[in-house]
C-alpha cells in the first residue's frame, strides 16, 4: 500500500514541478536555518565535562566592607582574594580543590627559527589535574610537594608541544618561560573543555591555554596575570595585585562527591565568613554561594545573547516556511478534489486518502530535510568564518544530525496534516456530479 501511495505522491509532485520545488525549498531553508542556529546553541550550552560537572563546585564568598551591602540582594564576589583562596585551599575540606588564575608567559623556544612569543597560561595548584580529570598523553601533573617547593615545573598542551618541541614525548625537556628554565612534567592529551567554565574572565569559548605552571612559582617570578581584577575600598593594583590587597582575581574550584558533602561545604563557607567577620577582615555578614558547573555557567549567562536571538529568529523563519508550505499543500490537495472524489467513489476509505496525502507531504518533507541538512552544513561553514570566539566550534554532531531529520519529517507531516484532513472531507457524489 505504502509503495502505491509513494508512487502516487511522486506522480502528483511531478505534475506541478515549480510548486513542488517551492515547497521543498521553503522547508529546506527553514530547516537549514534552524539547524544551523540550534547546533551553535547546542554546542555553546553544552556540558564542558560530562559525568564530572555535577560534583564540581565553585564557592563564592563576600569579603567586602559593609558599605553597599543589601541583604539577600547583593551577589557574593565572582572570584577570590589571595588570602581567602589560600585559607580555603589549605583547609582541605573538599574531596579535591584547586586555586588558580589565568596569565600569559613569554616563551623562548630553543628552536632558533621561532621568535619568542607570549602564550596564554594557567597558574594553578596541583588539584587541577585530578579534579578536572585531565587526560595526559605523556607524563603527569605535579603534586603538592612541587606546589610547596615552588618548583619550576610545567605541564603543556599537545598543541603547544607540537609547536615548540615538534611533538613526541617531551617530558623532562627544558622550557624557557619568562627567562627561567622549567622542566616539562606532562603533556596533556585531547582536552579542551567548552565553555571554558573554570575561568570565564578572558574568553568563554575556545580558550587555548598552552602552559600550566604551579601558582606559587608564577607568583615568585612575577608572571603576568591576565583576567579580571575587581577591587573595593581603596584597593587597586593594576593587573597583578599585591597578595594583601582588597582585590579578587583568583578562581577556586572544589570537588564534592555527594549532595550532603556539598551542604556541609556550604556550611563551612558560612562559618568561615562569620569567623573572618569576627576577625574584622570581612565587613558583611556571611554571603556565600556554592554553584556546580552548569549552575555557574547559567549564572554567568555564558551563551551569547546574539546566539539565542539568532535561534529565535531561525525558528520564526521556519514557522513562516511551514505556514507557507501548509497553504500551498492545502491549495494543491483541494484542487485535486475531483481525483480524490473518484477514489472515494471507487471504495477508498477516508483514512486511506488521508494516508496517501500524508505520504505525499512526507516525501516533500524528506527531500526538504535533506536540502535543509545540506544548507545547515553550509550555514555552519559560514558560522565558522564569523569573527566570534566560538566560531571554530560550530560543527554538526550525530545527535544534531538525528534531530535535523526528525525535525524535517515532523515539520512536513505537521504541515501535511491540516491539508490532508481538509481534502479527505470531500463528498464523493458531489465531486462526480459537478464534472
Amino acid at each position, binding site marked *: 500500500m505504502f509503495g502505491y501511495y509513494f508512487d502516487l505522491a511522486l506522480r502528483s509532485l511531478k505534475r506541478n514541478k515549480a510548486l513542488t520545488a517551492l515547497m521543498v525549498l521553503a522547508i529546506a531553508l527553514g530547516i537549514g536555518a534552524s539547524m544551523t542556529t540550534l547546533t551553535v546553541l547546542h554546542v555553546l550550552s553544552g556540558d564542558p565535562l560530562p559525568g564530572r560537572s555535577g560534583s564540581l563546585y565553585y564557592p563564592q564568598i563576600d569579603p567586602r566592607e559593609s558599605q553597599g551591602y543589601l541583604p539577600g540582594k547583593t551577589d557574593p564576589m565572582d572570584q577570590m582574594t589571595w588570602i581567602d583562596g589560600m585559607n580555603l585551599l589549605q583547609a582541605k575540606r573538599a574531596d579535591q580543590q584547586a586555586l588558580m588564575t589565568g596569565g600569559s608567559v*613569554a616563551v623562548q623556544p630553543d628552536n632558533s627559527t621561532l621568535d619568542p612569543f607570549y602564550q596564554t597560561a594557567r597558574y594553578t595548584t596541583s588539584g587541577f589535574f585530578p579534579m578536572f580529570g585531565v587526560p595526559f598523553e605523556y607524563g603527569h601533573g605535579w603534586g603538592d610537594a612541587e606546589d610547596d617547593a615552588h618548583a619550576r615545573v610545567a605541564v603543556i598542551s599537545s598543541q603547544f608541544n607540537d609547536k615548540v618541541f615538534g611533538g613526541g614525548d617531551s617530558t623532562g625537556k627544558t622550557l624557557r618561560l619568562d627567562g627561567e628554565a622549567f622542566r616539562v612534567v606532562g603533556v596533556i592529551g585531547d582536552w579542551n573543555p567548552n565553555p571554558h567554565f573554570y575561568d570565564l574572565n578572558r574568553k568563554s569559548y575556545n580558550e587555548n591555554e598552552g602552559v600550566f605552571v604551579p601558582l606559587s612559582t608564577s607568583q615568585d617570578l612575577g608572571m603576568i596575570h591576565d583576567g579580571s581584577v575587581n577591587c573595593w575600598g581603596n584597593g587597586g593594583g593594576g593587573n597583578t595585585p599585591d597578595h594583601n590587597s582588597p582585590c579578587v582575581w583568583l578562581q577556586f574550584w572544589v570537588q564534592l562527591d555527594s549532595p550532603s558533602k556539598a551542604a556541609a561545604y556550604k556550611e563551612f563557607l558560612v562559618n568561615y565568613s562569620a569567623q573572618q567577620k569576627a576577625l574584622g577582615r570581612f565587613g558583611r555578614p556571611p554571603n556565600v554561594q556554592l554553584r556546580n558547573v552548569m549552575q555557574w555557567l547559567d549564572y554567568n549567562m555564558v551563551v551569547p545573547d546574539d546566539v539565542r536571538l539568532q535561534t529565535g529568529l*531561525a525558528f520564526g523563519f521556519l514557522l513562516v516556511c511551514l505556514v507557507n508550505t501548509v497553504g500551498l499543500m492545502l491549495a494543491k490537495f483541494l484542487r485535486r478534489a475531483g481525483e480524490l472524489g473518484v477514489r472515494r467513489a471507487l471504495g477508498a476509505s477516508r483514512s486511506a486518502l488521508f494516508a496517501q496525502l500524508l505520504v505525499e507531504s512526507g516525501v516533500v518533507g524528506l527531500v526538504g530535510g535533506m536540502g535543509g541538512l545540506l544548507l545547515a552544513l553550509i550555514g555552519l561553514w559560514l558560522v565558522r568564518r564569523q569573527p566570534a570566539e566560538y566560531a571554530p566550534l560550530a560543527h554538526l554532531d550525530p545527535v544534531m544530525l538525528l534531530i535535523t531529520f526528525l525535525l524535517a519529517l515532523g515539520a512536513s507531516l505537521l504541515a501535511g496534516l491540516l491539508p490532508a484532513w481538509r481534502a479527505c472531507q470531500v463528498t464523493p457524489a458531489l465531486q462526480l456530479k459537478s464534472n
Partner: protein
Amino acid sequence: MIELRPIFSTLRRHKTTAWLLVLEIALTCAIVCNAVFLIGQRLQRMDLPSGVAEHELVQIQLGRIGKSTEAMAQSQTDLAALRLIPGVKQVAVINQLPFSDGGASNSGIRLSPQQQQDTLEATTYYGEGALSTLGVRLLEGRDFQHGEYADFGTIIADLHNGDLKNLPSTIIVTQALAQRLWPGQEALGQTIYVGKGLPFRVIGVVADLGRPNDLNQGPEYSTVWPIRMTVADGSSYVIRTAPQDRATVLQSAVAKLKQLDPNRVVLVKRTYDDARHEFFANDRAMAGILVGVIAALLTVTALGIVGLASFWVGQRRRTIGVRRALGATRGDILRYFQAENFLLASFGIAFGMVLAYGINLFLMVHYELPRLPGIYFPVGAAVLWVIGQLAVLGPAMRAANVPPVVATRSA
C-alpha cells in the same frame, strides 16, 4: 472603485487557505519589523562617536621577558626615542582605547562620601598627555598640567600604605557623564568620590570619549585621571600621526622599540581604525545575518503568494471566463486579483503589527532592547503591501488573459 463584496464572498469559500496566507504575511511582517529594528540598533552602535582622532592613531603594546626594574625610566626613554621618528606628532602611554578589545579599567563613582551604592560605573583613562594625543576635544575647563600627574606605581603603594596626601585630586569627565551626574548644573568644580571616599574635583569636560567595552553601562561614561603609566602596567604606546603615515610610523616605531630593548615581545600593533573595526566585527556579522533573514523571509512569502495566486487563478478560470463574457474588461480582472491580495495583505499587516509589538516586548524584557519606534510600523506595512502586489502581478495578468470563450466550454 473596486467592489469588495465579491472578493469577500470568494475568500469565504477558501477560508482556511486565506487565513494561512494572512498568517504568513503577519508573521513575516512581525519578524521583518523587529529584524530591521535590530539592524538599526547595530548600525547605531557601530556608529558611536569614539571622540578620538580615529584615522591618525596607532597602538603598540609590548610584553617584556623577565622582570624589568626600571619601568618608568624605560618608558621615558622609549617615549623620547619614539618622538624622534619622522612623522610622529605625539606619543603617550595610555591604559586603554575606546571601542577596542583588551582589558578595561573601570571605577564605581559616588556623589557623596556617605553614599551606600555607586551611582554608576565609569571607565577610567590614565596616561600623561592622553587627551591631546588622542585628539579629544575639550569643551570646558582645562587639561591636566605636568605637575598634576602622579606615577601609577606610587599611587598603588600609597593606597596600600594608607598614605593619601600625595594622591591626585583632579579629574576630567565627558559631557555625557557630567549631564548624567549633575543634570542642568555646571560640572566644573563638582566633586566625585571613589574608593573609601577619596575626593576628585572636576577641572575639565570633554566632548566625546567612548569606553573600551561594556557599552551597555553608558557608551560615553568616561573619566580621565592625572596618572602616569608605564608599559609594564599593561598600557600601550599610542602614537598620533598623519593618516597616510600610519603604516610606516608603526613599522619604524616597532623596530625602534625592539632595538632599545630586544627582550621585548610585541603583543599588539595596529592602527586605531583596525582596532575599532575588529571590536564591532560581531555587530557587523549580526547585521549581515539579519539582512539575509529578511531577504529570505520576504522571498519565501512572495513565492508563497505567487503559488497560491496561481492556484486560485487556475481554479477560477471558468468564473473569470464568465465575467469576461459578461463584459468585464481585462483591467477589471487584473484589479480584482490585486484588490484581493491587497485585502489579504492588509489583514496580515494588521495582525503583524500586533505580533511585532509583542515580539518587541519580549525582546525588551530578555535582551535589554529599547521600544520599537512607531516609524517601523508604516514602513513594514508599505514593504509588505509592495511585495504582495509585485508577487500577485504575474498570476493576475495570466488571469486577465483568460479569454471569454472559456465560459462556453465545459470544464
